[in-house]
C-alpha cells in the first residue's frame, strides 16, 4: 500500500487546549497534515470547503453550530471523527456515518486507532458515504425532540433560521424555499425530510408543496369547489389541498 499524499485534517474545537492536544498527537503521524484549526462551527463549515479537508476532528458542543449541524452543512463530506466529553451522542454520530467517536480525555493509542479506521474507510475506494438526508436532519435534533432551527448554506456563509421566525416552506424541485420574515433561502433537501422534523402542533403540510406555520395563517377562504387558499398575516396566499384542509381542521 502506498501513501501518496498526507490526509488534510481540520481540527474543530472551541477549547484551545483540546485543539493543541490533537495537533500534538497528530504530529507523530506523517500521513496526516493539519491544515487548519477552527474554534466554532461557522468557521469550520467555511474552512472545510476552502481547505479541501479529507478529515475533520469535530467537537460536538460549540458556539453557534454544534458538531452535527456542521456535519449537515459539509459538502462534500469529509471523513469525520467526533471528539467530545459526552458519550450520549455516539449513536447519532454513527448514524451520520462518523468514522469514529473519541471520548475525552483520550490517548495517543486511541487516536491511532481512529486514524487506522479513517485509512480503512478511505482505502475502501469509495468516497466517504454521505449520510442520507433524513439521517442528517434527524441528527440535527436530539432524539424525541423537534427541530428548533433550519440551517442554510450559502457559499461559505451559513444562515440560521430559528423556527419561531419561519412563515412557510415551499418545495421547488430538489430544493426547499424557506420563507421567514420577508426573506427566503433555498436549501437542498426534500420537503418531506424537513417536514418530518417539525413540531406537528405548530407546522402543517397544507399542500404537497407547502408547509406553513399555523400561527401565521390569518384566515382561510374557499376559492373553488374543494379548494381553499390560506391567507397569511402578511397577505400572502398559499394553496390548501383537500388533505391539507383536513389536517388543518384537525389542529384548529
Amino acid at each position, binding site marked *: 500500500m502506498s501513501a501518496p499524499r498526507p490526509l488534510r485534517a481540520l481540527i474543530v474545537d472551541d477549547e484551545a487546549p*483540546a485543539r493543541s492536544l490533537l495537533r500534538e498527537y497528530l504530529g507523530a503521524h506523517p500521513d496526516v497534515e493539519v491544515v487548519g484549526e477552527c474554534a466554532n462551527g461557522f468557521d469550520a463549515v467555511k474552512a472545510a470547503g476552502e481547505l479541501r479537508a479529507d478529515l475533520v476532528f469535530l467537537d460536538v458542543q460549540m458556539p453557534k453550530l454544534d458538531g452535527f449541524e456542521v456535519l449537515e452543512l459539509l459538502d462534500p463530506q469529509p471523513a469525520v471523527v467526533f471528539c467530545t*466529553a459526552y458519550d450520549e451522542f455516539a449513536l447519532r454520530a454513527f448514524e451520520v456515518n462518523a468514522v469514529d467517536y473519541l471520548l*475525552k480525555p483520550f490517548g495517543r493509542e486511541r487516536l491511532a486507532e481512529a486514524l487506522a479506521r479513517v485509512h480503512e474507510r478511505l482505502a475502501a475506494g469509495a468516497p466517504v458515504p454521505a449520510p442520507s438526508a433524513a439521517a442528517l436532519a434527524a441528527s440535527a435534533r436530539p432524539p424525541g425532540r423537534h427541530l428548533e*432551527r433550519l440551517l442554510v448554506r450559502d457559499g461559505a456563509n451559513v444562515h440560521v433560521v430559528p423556527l419561531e421566525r419561519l412563515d412557510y416552506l415551499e418545495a421547488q424541485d430538489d430544493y426547499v424555499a424557506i420563507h421567514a420574515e420577508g426573506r427566503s433561502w433555498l436549501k437542498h433537501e426534500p420537503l418531506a425530510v424537513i417536514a418530518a422534523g417539525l413540531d406537528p402542533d405548530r407546522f402543517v403540510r397544507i399542500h404537497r408543496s407547502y408547509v406553513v406555520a399555523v400561527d401565521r395563517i390569518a384566515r382561510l377562504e374557499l376559492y373553488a369547489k374543494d379548494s381553499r387558499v390560506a391567507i397569511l398575516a402578511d397577505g400572502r396566499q398559499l394553496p390548501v389541498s383537500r388533505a391539507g384542509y383536513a389536517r388543518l381542521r384537525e389542529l384548529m
Partner: protein
Amino acid sequence: MHPLFSRGAPLALYVLAWLVAGAIAAEILRLVVPQPATLALAYAVPLGLVYGFIVLSAWWVCRANPLANGRLGRAASSQLAAALQAAASWAAIGLAWGAALLRLHPIEGGRALLLREGLLLLLSGAPIYLLSAVVHYLVLAFAASREVERRLLESEVGAREAELRALRAQLNPHFLFNSLNSINALVGSDPEAARRMCERLGDFLRRTLALGARDDVALAEELELVERYLAIEQVRFGDRLRVERDVAADAAACRVPPLLLQPLVENAVKHGVAGRLDGGTVSLSAHRRGGSLVLAVENPVDPDAPGRPGAGLGLENVRRRLDAFGARAARLEAERGPEHFRVTLTLPAFESEAAGAAS
C-alpha cells in the same frame, strides 16, 4: 370513625370490660336493694354496655377541641357540656329501661328504686365521661408525637437525598472529563501548568465534598469554591471567559446553604459563555438589602441559541437546596432576556452563630 372500631381484638376487649363492669354494678345494686340477681343483671349489664359506647363520643369532642395554649378554657367547657349531655342521656335510657323491666318483673318499692338509680346514673355518668375524655386526649397526644417523629425522620431523609443529588450534580462528569482533557493537553505543552491544573482540580473536588457535607457555610467559603471552579474553566476557555465580581463585605459573612452559587456559575459558563463565539462576562454579585441577602449570577446568551434542556435541571437543584435550607422567605428568580440570562436568589441574611461555627 373511632379508631377502636378499626380492629376487632381491642373492640372485643373493650366490650368485655364493660360487661364485667356491668356485672359488678349489678352485685353492688343487690347489696343496696335486695332483688333477684337476674333483674339486677338485666338492668346493669345492658346499661353499662350502652354507656361504654356513649363515652366513645369523647373522641370527636377531643379532636374538635385540641389542648392548645389559649384554648384550654373552651376545651374544658365543651367537654363539661358533653359530659352532662352524655350522663343525662344515660340516665334517661336507664329510667326507660328500668321501667320496662319493672313492668315485666314488678318488685316492691320499684318506682323509688328506679328514681334513685337514675340519679346515680346521672351523677356517675359525668365523671366516667370525663375519664374517657382524658384517656382520649392521651391517645391523641401519643399519636401526634409519633406523627411528629415520622415527619422529622422523613424531612431528614429528604434533606439527605437533596444533599446527595446536589453532590452528584455538582461533580458534573463532563466538567471532569473536559478538565482531564485540558490537563492531557498541558502535559505536552506546559507541564508546569498541567501540575497547577491538577492541584486546582484536586482542591476544587476536596472543597466540594467538604462543603457539601455541611448544613450551611459562609458565603465567602462558597465564593472561594466558585473561584476555584472559574480558575479551572479559565484554562479551557482562555479569554473567552471573563468574570466580574461585586461582593459586599457584609454579604460575605452571611450563612448560605453550600453548593448554592457554584452550580449557577457553572450554568452561566456552560450555557452562556461557551455558547458564544467571543465568549462573555459572568457577573456575580452579593449584597444585603434590609434583612435579605441578594445573590445574582448573570451571563450573556447567544440570541440564536436553541432552548437548553439541561439548564432547568440545574436550577431545579438549586431551588431544592434552597427549600432544604428551610428558609420560607428564600426565593429564586430566573429571567431570560434576548441576550442575557440572570438568576437572582433572595434569602434571609444571618451571620455565623454557634451552631454554624461548630461544624
